[in-house]
């Protein structure tokens, strides 16, 4: 049992965050090195955890449950850790050059690493209140990061995001209060043992509050209003983190963990998740197709793609969950890459409006090629990763006799292709406009980050091969399907 590895994922970024802010702005190269080193170490540790299939339970302060707080590392947490670490690594590398446009880079790294620590904490936590605390650490850092530029639109978006994010957190806290009042425990495993599949109205209220809170964080459709404002307003590496992993770690992961593993899985929760997922998928893409702001378009597509993930989860069949988990990590790779590409264009041209771009392919070949790969992947064209996960989800819909959802998924996929054809046509292909005649390719570190993710988009399609799938995806799927059997593991029994 290598359980000492588990707190490492929270302690390292938390410690690095407070170290990095001490670096004076003159010596910000040191901060660059420190942040990237931290990201690299997290990536290596998460890689070891995932490849070796390390699982375990860590009791904070040595207090066993139900008294103490436990941190649980199972298959699903391990996969989320790896996803967070990969995107963190790419984003920190990208920030080295990109964040030079902003003042006070060390503070940026401090907030960034705090956000990573919070997200890692959320996916590892085995305790309701601890989950809330980590959720708030990650959220507060992300509120500050969204408004980092302090321009008009950014402040407006930050307030909107802050208000709705705070509402979500309060819903979760009220849910925690209900859970404690009704069962007298805060530990997820202990809670499952004590309720033993029994539900009453009080517990239903608690579940509803959790679904609302985490649904707001995941931006499922009736609760999505903040996302298209907040994600484009943030500096680009943060947009990539927010859309790539933040909504998944604090939204989808927490929602799935609480509604599937801790509360007994019920037909009702599956139905709610299915309906919300279907709505998100369709509404997101309809809103996206009319957008002319590059990053805003991508933000709407995030809503739409999260809809796919939720449908897979809501089906509840092993195949559906496999598709959902697979699409979740795929979306992290290609959506982050698309945001980084949009940021690279903005870095050189200073605009996010698609109509003002044109022919950038000739001047920025690396950005253009990697964005093209990501566009093909998100549209679901073979041989890229998005194709396989979408096919699995659609096939799972058909198997579960949900033909309506299958048809909707296909139509949404076609509309996604249309919308990304628009992006490619206006931004990268076509005639080069005269005013862009002198622009150059972005600095090397930004190129490396984008190429890294583009290669990943291709390589991740190999996860469909059964040998690789069993190592990477299957543990996560198993731990979701296990339902409340999670207890026997998380209780350290």
């Amino acid at each position: 049992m290598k359980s000492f590895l588990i707190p490492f994922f929270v302690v390292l970024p938390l410690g690095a965050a407070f170290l990095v802010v001490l670096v004076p702005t003159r010596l910000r190269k040191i901060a660059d090195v420190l942040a990237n080193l931290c990201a690299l170490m997290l990536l290596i540790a998460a890689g070891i955890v995932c490849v070796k299939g390390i699982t375990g339970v860590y009791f904070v302060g040595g207090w066993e449950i139900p008294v103490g707080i436990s941190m649980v590392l199972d298959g699903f947490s391990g996969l989320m850790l790896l996803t967070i670490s990969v995107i963190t690594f790419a984003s920190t590398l990208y920030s080295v050059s990109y964040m030079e446009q902003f003042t006070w880079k060390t503070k940026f790294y401090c907030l960034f690493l705090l956000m990573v620590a919070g997200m890692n904490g959320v996916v590892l936590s085995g305790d309701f209140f601890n989950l809330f605390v980590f959720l708030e650490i990650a959220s507060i850092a992300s509120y500050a990061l969204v408004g980092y530029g302090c321009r008009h639109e950014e402040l407006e978006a930050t307030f909107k995001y802050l208000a709705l994010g705070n509402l979500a957190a309060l819903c979760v806290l009220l849910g925690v209060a209900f859970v404690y009042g009704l069962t007298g425990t805060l530990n997820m495993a202990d809670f499952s043992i004590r309720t033993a599949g029994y539900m009453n109205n009080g517990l239903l209220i608690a579940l509803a509050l959790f679904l609302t809170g985490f649904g707001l964080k995941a931006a499922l459709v009736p609760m999505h209003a903040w996302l298209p404002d907040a994600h484009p307003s943030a500096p680009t590496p943060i947009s990539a983190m927010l859309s790539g992993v933040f909504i998944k770690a604090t939204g989808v992961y927490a929602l799935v963990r609480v509604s599937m593993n801790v509360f007994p899985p019920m037909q009702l929760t599956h139905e709610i998740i299915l309906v919300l997922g279907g709505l998100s998928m369709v509404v997101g893409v309809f809103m996206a197709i009319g957008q002319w702001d590059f990053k805003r378009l991508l933000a709407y597509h995030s809503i739409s793609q999260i809809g796919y993930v939720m449908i897979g989860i809501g089906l509840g069949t092993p195949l559906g969950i496999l598709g959902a988990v697979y699409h979740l990590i795929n979306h992290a790779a290609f959506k982050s890459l698309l945001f980084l590409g949009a940021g690279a264009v903005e870095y050189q041209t200073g605009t996010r409006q698609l109509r003002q771009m044109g022919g950038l392919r000739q001047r920025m070949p690396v950005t253009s090629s990697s964005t093209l790969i990501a566009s093909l992947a998100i549209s679901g064209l073979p041989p890229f990763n998005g194709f396989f996960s979408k096919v699995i989800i659609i096939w799972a819909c058909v198997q579960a006799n949900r033909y309506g959802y299958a048809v909707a998924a296909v139509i949404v996929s076609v509309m996604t292709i249309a919308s990304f054809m628009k992006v490619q046509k206006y931004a990268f292909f076509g005639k080069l406009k005269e005013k862009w005649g002198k622009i150059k390719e972005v600095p090397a570190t930004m190129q490396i980050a984008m190429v890294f993710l583009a290669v990943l988009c291709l390589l991740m399609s190999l996860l469909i091969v059964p040998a690789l799938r069993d190592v990477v995806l299957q543990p996560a799927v198993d731990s979701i399907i296990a339902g409340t059997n999670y207890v026997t593991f998380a209780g350290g029994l």
Partner: protein
Amino acid sequence: MIYGLCILLFLIGLYAVVTKHNLIKIVIGFIIMENAINLFLIMLGYRMGGKAPIIWQDAAGKADIAAFANSAVDPLPQALVLTSIVISLGVTALMVAICLRVYQRYGTFDISKIRRLKG
């Protein structure tokens, strides 16, 4: 009944957040909601005429502990509330800071006039 009052307070805060047009009033609405939840948590652990949850080392006989557990209030919600107060302090400070910056940029606290983002 008394729990109902906590929920009522929570709903008053929610009403302020949803309907008010002034940024500061929205912030106050959030503070009301946070305090309603904190009050709710404290209520959960409260016992009429209960003792403070403190025990001395020399009073540690078996029967004493049982009697103590039956008469003291539950200390765990109090610890939770302390944590949640610290968190809400952080959020409120950030919110007020954002309000100030918004006022510097837009010259108003009225959210119906702060509408540059559309679509």
